[in-house]
């Protein structure tokens, strides 16, 4: 190492008491823009429907004003759905960013940790196998709650199986991939043996949808997401140095084993919350961190921006699905149809720039 490598930091740091971070204007600007976009899409989504409400009236009503009829339509009918989209998008985006950071693999996501497949297998089991026990479970706790339990159980199973004197990213994703494959095979088998009417119902659930969300489900999901995001925010400052590897992180004073366990647990629970609120919306957690990385131009998946990209993607897709398309499609189809090509566009643009 020559001494030219030791130089002043290119970007200035900011220190506020015990908290310090590097000042990156582009990063902050993009994140603020994403937050604004999230709010805009959120309001547009509330305004759109059989009874259209103009944007200013939506905003006025959300902040406590508005006419009585607007209040009824927005607060009682439309807000739960929009909030569900917001929560699911945030949860999936952050969960994906954490998983990809921990595994240091752009293909990793809560899907790879078995949460989506576990929830899917349980839901398909309940929806396709008619008979005493399954019908009783589906009737008493509901398919979503049972699927949530299945997803969290599978996530926990992956975690326990991958535990061997600590959690190692490589072992975690390989175990996760095998457990996911197992759950996927069970789902496929159930679908292949079931009655085709049940299969169609199961298919709709598997895609993920925001139809008919009420305040009951949304309140629980919103509260638990807020708690989890607070924990993530608290651990985030310790989390960032872990990209340099365990040794460097330990050298910088990070208790990496604890931070990793906490972050992984949060990722699993966030994905679980999303499953309970919208079903296993596929691909969002995989795509959003990569999109956010390229928008923010940062080398690792950014937590806040990923969550916001997820929220914009989910609410926006729901808006498109309800208004722009001739046929009604569940939100999961539209997120994938928009998210996939957008990721490809960003990749192609980045590749082009390398030529210059």
């Amino acid at each position, binding site marked *: 190492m020559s001494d030219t490598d030791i130089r002043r930091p290119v970007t200035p740091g900011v220190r506020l008491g015990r908290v310090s971070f590097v000042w990156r204007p582009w990063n902050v600007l993009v994140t603020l823009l994403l937050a604004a976009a999230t709010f805009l899409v959120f309001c547009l989504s509330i305004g759109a429907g059989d009874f259209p409400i103009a944007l200013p009236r939506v905003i006025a009503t959300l902040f406590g004003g508005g006419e009585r009829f607007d209040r009824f339509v927005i607060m009682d009918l439309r807000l739960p759905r929009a909030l569900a989209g917001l929560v699911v998008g945030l949860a999936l985006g952050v969960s994906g960013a954490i998983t990809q950071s921990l595994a240091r*693999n*752009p*293909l*990793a996501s809560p899907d*790879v940790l078995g949460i989506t497949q576990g929830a899917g297998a349980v839901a398909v089991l309940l929806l396709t196998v008619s008979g005493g026990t399954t019908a009783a479970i589906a009737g008493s706790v509901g398919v979503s709650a049972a699927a949530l339990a299945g997803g969290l159980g599978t996530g926990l199973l992956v975690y326990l*199986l*991958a535990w*061997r004197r600590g959690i190692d990213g*490589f*072992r975690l*994703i*390989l*175990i996760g*991939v*095998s*457990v996911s*494959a*197992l759950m*996927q*095979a*069970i789902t*496929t*088998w159930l*679908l*292949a043996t079931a009655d*085709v009417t049940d*299969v*169609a119902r199961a*298919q*709709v659930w598997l*895609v993920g949808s925001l139809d008919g969300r009420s305040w009951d489900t949304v309140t629980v999901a919103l509260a638990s997401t807020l708690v989890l995001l607070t924990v993530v925010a608290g651990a985030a400052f310790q989390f960032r140095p872990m990209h340099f590897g365990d040794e460097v992180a330990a050298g910088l004073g990070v208790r990496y084993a604890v931070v990793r366990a906490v972050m992984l647990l949060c990722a699993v629970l966030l994905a679980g919350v999303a499953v309970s609120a919208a079903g296993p919306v*596929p*691909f969002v957690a*995989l*795509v959003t961190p*990569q999109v956010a990385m390229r928008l923010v131009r940062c080398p690792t998946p950014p937590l806040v921006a990923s969550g916001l990209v997820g929220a914009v993607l989910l609410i926006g897709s729901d808006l498109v699905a309800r208004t722009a398309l001739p*046929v009604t*499609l*569940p939100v*999961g*189809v*539209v*997120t*994938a*149809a928009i*998210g*996939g*090509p*957008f*990721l*490809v566009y960003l*990749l*192609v643009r*980045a*590749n*082009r*720039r*390398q*030529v210059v």
Partner: protein
Amino acid sequence: MSAVKETRLASGPASGVASGSAAARRRRLTGLSVLVALLAVSVAASLAIGARSLSPGEVWQGLFAAPDPDQRLTEIRLIVRTVRLPRTVLAVVAGIALGVGGALIQGCTRNPIADTGLLGVNAGASFGVVTVIALFGFTSPFQYVWFAFVGAAASGVVVFGLASIGRGAGNPLTLVLAGQGVAVFLAAMTTAITLSDRQSLNALRFWNAGTVAGVGFRVIWPVTAFIVVGLVLALATLPAVNLLNLGDDVARAMGVNIAVTRTVAIVAITLLAGAATAACGPIAFLGLMVAHVARYLTGPDYRWLVPYAGLLGAVVLMVCDIVGRLVVRPGELDAGIVVALLGAPFFAALVWRGKFRNA
């Protein structure tokens, strides 16, 4: 530091880590012959075992006896030649294709969870199947097999095309992510069709299970031809893939044309995975699993790893097909499902015991 690297490289450009010794070579050859023997045994078992079990003598008669008025012999001939032989041949061919494809894609992307579906091949094949069923109402696999292959090949080409626009060409990360992006989009289109068209949903759920049964030689021979071309291309790239795993800079310094190597490898993977998926449906996890097991058995030298992975793929697919015939008699469990149900716990146990290293 640099001196160590030079001596290691000087011992032979593609020799990998300490693979030059005669003992290691002998051990690997022994392993290879054991795998070939295992494959032969499983082929014999596959011909004999099923809803009606046959003795080795009967299998022999069924295969080679001339047409005979004898009622019993005609029945045996029918079972062996039109039911057991096609699925056995397809299991061998598809198993080799998926094993080789899985090992090669892990070598090209340096990603340990890369599987043969990564280039959008499975999503493309499913999309092809669902589209023709929804548009033309095809019902028999004979009709839609070719559309599955076209879908798989087209998505492979699109992914590679997108990833190689500009001079960042063939960067493994770009390739992996472009594959995911295209697969995500195609899967969404497939779902959109199946949600509105009950008939294609019904076909897709059986197609998704992945099976080696039910297609005749009319499909198997052309599929085999594509796979053979893919295998030749795959084997031709192996020395260069070894060097790519030392990093792009080292590979370039050793005289490897990186863009050509990656292109040929990806064409090979698309042919192998596309043809196998078209004939069998998506068989997930097989390529990923055998690539890791092969790496554990041979070490990181792809010239050995890839043949091992191919043979392992064939053996595993064959055994899973046989198990699938036995467990839910008189019905059958599709081989693709058995692969995951049996393979995943086994694989997870090996991972837990720390048998595998990063690709």
